[in-house]
């Protein structure tokens, strides 16, 4: 039964998430709130690991989530659910491929939909910033202003921005550099 729910939920994500892996994150938060399969902190951890292992991040995230919810089989079913709508739609659309994107009605829907898809990604970024750069639970506990910030993370972010400005790095190198800095700064 849980497998069926997992498949359905990820099918829905595959159907409604526009804008790639980061656009699926708000849906994962929604699942976390409704089913409690994993915590918000888990999502941030899963995302960090997904960036550092092979495969599309969205598939990694879905597999992680499925695994947390229902073990090994869940880890396989969730990504399958995620890609099923694409396979169905593309098999259908391929017949009249070029007409699809030129269709005015499709364009009107996409015109309204794309900014909302951006908003989903912005929301995902906001949530991750909240967890990655700030330590709100600790602040609530101690009430000390300096406890709000995760100083090492903020320092690393600033270093990355500066390095990236000077010479743009491939995402994989950014991840490796950031992970190494994370370990070194806090030794």
């Amino acid at each position, binding site marked *: 039964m849980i497998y069926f729910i997992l498949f359905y939920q990820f099918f829905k994500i595959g159907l409604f998430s526009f804008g790639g892996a980061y656009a699926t994150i708000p849906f994962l938060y929604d699942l976390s709130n409704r089913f409690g399969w994993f915590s918000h902190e888990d999502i941030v951890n899963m995302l960090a690991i997904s960036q550092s292992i092979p495969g599309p991040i969205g598939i990694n995230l879905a597999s992680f989530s499925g695994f947390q919810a229902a073990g090994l089989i869940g880890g396989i079913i969730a990504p399958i659910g995620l890609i099923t709508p694409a396979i169905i739609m593309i098999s259908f659309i391929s017949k009249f491929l070029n007409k699809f994107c030129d269709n005015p009605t499709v364009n009107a829907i996409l015109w309204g939909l794309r900014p909302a898809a951006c908003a*989903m990604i912005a929301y995902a970024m906001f949530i991750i910033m909240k967890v990655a750069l700030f330590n709100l639970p600790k602040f609530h506990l101690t009430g000390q202003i300096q406890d709000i910030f995760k100083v090492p993370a903020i320092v690393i972010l600033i270093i990355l921005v500066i390095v990236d400005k000077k010479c743009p790095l491939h995402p994989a190198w950014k991840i490796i550099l950031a992970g190494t800095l994370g370990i070194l700064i806090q030794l």
Partner: protein
Amino acid sequence: MKNKLKDLIELFYVFLLIGTLNFGGGYSVLPFFQKEIVQKRKWVSEDELLNYYVLGQCLPGLIAINASTFIGHKKQRTLGAIFATAGMVTPAIISVLIVTIFIYNFIHLTIVQNAILGINAAVILLIFDALFHFLKKSVRDKSTLFIFLLAFLLSFKISPAFIIFGAGLFGFSIKKIRGEI
């Protein structure tokens, strides 16, 4: 029949290879597709590949997966689409299973947490890049800016599927009222 089977196995194999070598998905797979599928195997042309990327963005789901599905479909219809996509997701799932079984237990170790803290900072930057890229293309006037801001505020309260659905409907209605469609 035999040729079809050979094609399907080759599709699976090539996408398995790309899925293993690529970290991250999205646009970072594009160079792999260009090398393995356009130049080496000539399954699709450079223009077709770009079309698939553009169309892949019009559709929901992951761009790299959508492009794989298109390429597989061009070669061997629906079965081809399934084999190509299966090849692409298999390494991603296996790597997650390996991490979950062997490494996730160590997630609370200080050194792992420290690495993750650093990686998260990089993730923020990567998401910002993606967001900036998409914003430039999609938010160009007052109405689209309004949709962006409203959707952002609503995402704190409402399930994302509703927001996407509503935004599509809103876009359609506005264009209809303006008489553009």
